[in-house]
């Protein structure tokens, strides 16, 4: 029954004498008050179904998303995509935590541990996979890792993967020296003041595990790892905090060696810089996903995810950001450029990459992130 019908019945009852004048006016007044109070919120709720908010890393990736996914999606569905950006996963999680349900919808998140963090905070949605037929093109191993976190269900679709390997200036460090020293070059006294590193506790501890000959997903001598982090700190010129800063430090030769993101280093190589890239044994592999936050309009989001997973979109985005897409190369022809990208696995099994175990890393998050904050500052 709509509101007009309700008011007509009320008026009828008043005219029939079933309601006295005072009660009738009271009910009309209460209805008016309720309408006035709910209207702004109702408008918001209506608007949510008319638009979907997507947050990502900006730059060429956003441009590719806009061209190949958002605009065709809007043309087909009439649903607008509001395109936002963030500087880092931690910063974005703080924004989501402070927001109202439904304010943020889809995010381009990094790492399975972020997926687990969102799930632990009660921010995970549940996707209806029937609405995302393009999910069949995705490498199964990438999907299964996420299912393991959310009891067989999915709150996201995998989108791309890459590595955090060793980047070095070939003018000053040879390929042979890199192969010989591997991750230990980051704590080599010979390069004091010319070493860099990401200001991220996970990466620091992962590489500390490699430098102390331990399994990054099951290290036992944590004290030795902190010593390695301290040694790296003492030799490093600077901790970088963004991909742009990483590229600037390497391109300007402020530093000669650092760990770096495979796609960013490929971009430097494309620009003509003589920067080498090497994934050491047990190098840091990671995947990114398109995560739907709880409280979002699910069907609209699922349809958008399907657009984004379409091979044409995925390949265009992958070529723009220099990270291989999550599409299975045995099922989809990925073109010419993608097979040349660092970390690309032509078999689609990803057997050569080591990913972070989310249980292990999230189990240490509170303690290690705090400890790194101190070690970073000289403690």
């Amino acid at each position, binding site marked *: 029954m709509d509101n007009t019908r309700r008011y007509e019945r009320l008026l009828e009852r008043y005219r029939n004498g079933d309601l006295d004048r005072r009660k009738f006016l009271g009910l009309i007044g209460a209805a008016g008050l309720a309408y006035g109070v709910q209207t702004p919120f109702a408008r918001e709720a209506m608007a949510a179904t008319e638009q979907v908010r997507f947050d990502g890393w900006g730059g060429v990736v956003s441009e590719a998303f806009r061209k190949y996914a958002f605009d065709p999606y809007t043309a087909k569905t009439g649903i607008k995509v509001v395109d936002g950006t963030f500087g*880092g996963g*931690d*910063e974005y*999680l*703080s924004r989501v*935590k402070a927001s109202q349900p439904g304010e943020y919808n889809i995010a381009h998140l990094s790492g399975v541990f972020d997926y687990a*963090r969102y799930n*632990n*905070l*009660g921010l995970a949605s549940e996707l209806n996979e029937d609405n995302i037929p393009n999910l069949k093109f995705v490498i199964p191993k990438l999907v299964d890792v996420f299912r393991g976190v959310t009891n067989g269900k999915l709150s996201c679709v995998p989108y791309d993967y890459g590595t955090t390997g060793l980047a070095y200036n070939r003018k000053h460090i040879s390929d042979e020296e890199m192969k010989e020293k591997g991750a230990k070059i980051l704590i080599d006294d010979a390069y004091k*003041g010319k070493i860099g590193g990401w200001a991220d*506790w996970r990466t620091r501890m992962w590489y500390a595990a490699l430098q102390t000959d331990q399994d990054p997903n099951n290290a036992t001598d944590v004290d030795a790892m902190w010593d390695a982090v301290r040694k790296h*700190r003492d030799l*490093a*010129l*600077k*901790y970088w*905090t963004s991909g742009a800063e990483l590229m*600037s430090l390497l391109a*300007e*030769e*402020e530093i000669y060696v650092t760990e770096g993101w495979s796609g960013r280093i490929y971009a430097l190589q494309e620009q003509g810089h003589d920067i080498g890239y090497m994934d050491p044994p047990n190098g840091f592999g990671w995947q990114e996903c398109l995560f739907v936050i709880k409280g979002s309009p699910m069907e609209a989001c699922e349809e958008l995810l399907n657009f984004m997973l379409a091979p044409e979109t995925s390949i265009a985005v992958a070529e723009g950001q220099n990270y291989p897409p999550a599409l299975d190369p045995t099922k989809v022809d990925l073109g010419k450029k993608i097979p040349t990208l660092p970390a690309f696995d032509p078999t689609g099994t990803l057997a050569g990459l080591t990913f972070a175990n989310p249980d292990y890393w999230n189990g240490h*998050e*509170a303690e290690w*992130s*705090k400890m790194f*904050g*101190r070690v*970073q*500052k*000289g*403690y």
Partner: protein
Amino acid sequence: MSVERREARQPWILLSPALTAVTLLLFVPLLFILVYSFWLRTATGADQVGFFFDNWQEALTDRFYRDILLNTLKIAAITTIVCALMGYPAAYFIARSRGNKAILLLLLMLPFWISYIIRTMSWINILGVSGALNSILLSLGIIHQPLQMLYNETTVILGLVHFLLPFMILNVFVSLEGIDVTLEDAAHSLGATRWQSFLEVTLPLSLPGLAAGGLLCFVLGAGTYITPLVLGGPRDAMFANLVFEAVITQLNWPLGSALSLMLLAVLGTLVLIYNRYLGMAQLMKGLG
């Protein structure tokens, strides 16, 4: 209602929009932060509502926070002194110049039109290994290897001075503008040299402006986190960086709240001391 009562109410009616804004935008958020500081962060990252002193105990007793706070105050103090030494002559020059005062003031305001972050990052292009300064020194043959000038405490102070110097100059300028120049003439007529008249007359009368500029520079310098992030090395963090890390990196909003209130309390105490001895009127003149 009597005329007296109506007149007594009028200022409050006029002030009510401002008081409402201050209450909603300052006091209420501060209250939220205060309440948050007594909560706890659980292992999953969620907040545990309650009344716990753990964050305060950690913030007040842990040597780590005390050391970083002291280092922050040291960097802010050095920055303030450098700003005073560089800013006073500039303000004096502008105040005593004839004709082109407006242009000089406009030039002083010019940096505010550019983003603070961009201004801070510009030092990378000046002091970097491939930066302007190294290129000039190398091309002149003065050095044969680029000098490593960036990412240390000195560059952090340099960046802060770059950011805060206009605040110091404006405050001192306002103070100098308010001094009657005939007082200096009177000192000359009584036999004082230019230097003596400056030391005995102008400087003492301009001290409130210097103090106001000093307070602004110190408070803004102590609260910054962008400059050490962009121009500092691994060990050059300031206290605001700890707040950022607690809130953003560690998702520990309760501890971040306690730390931010601690910094607020320290800087607030300094402002109260300033107000007790010099009053806020001079600061308002400078800001105006």
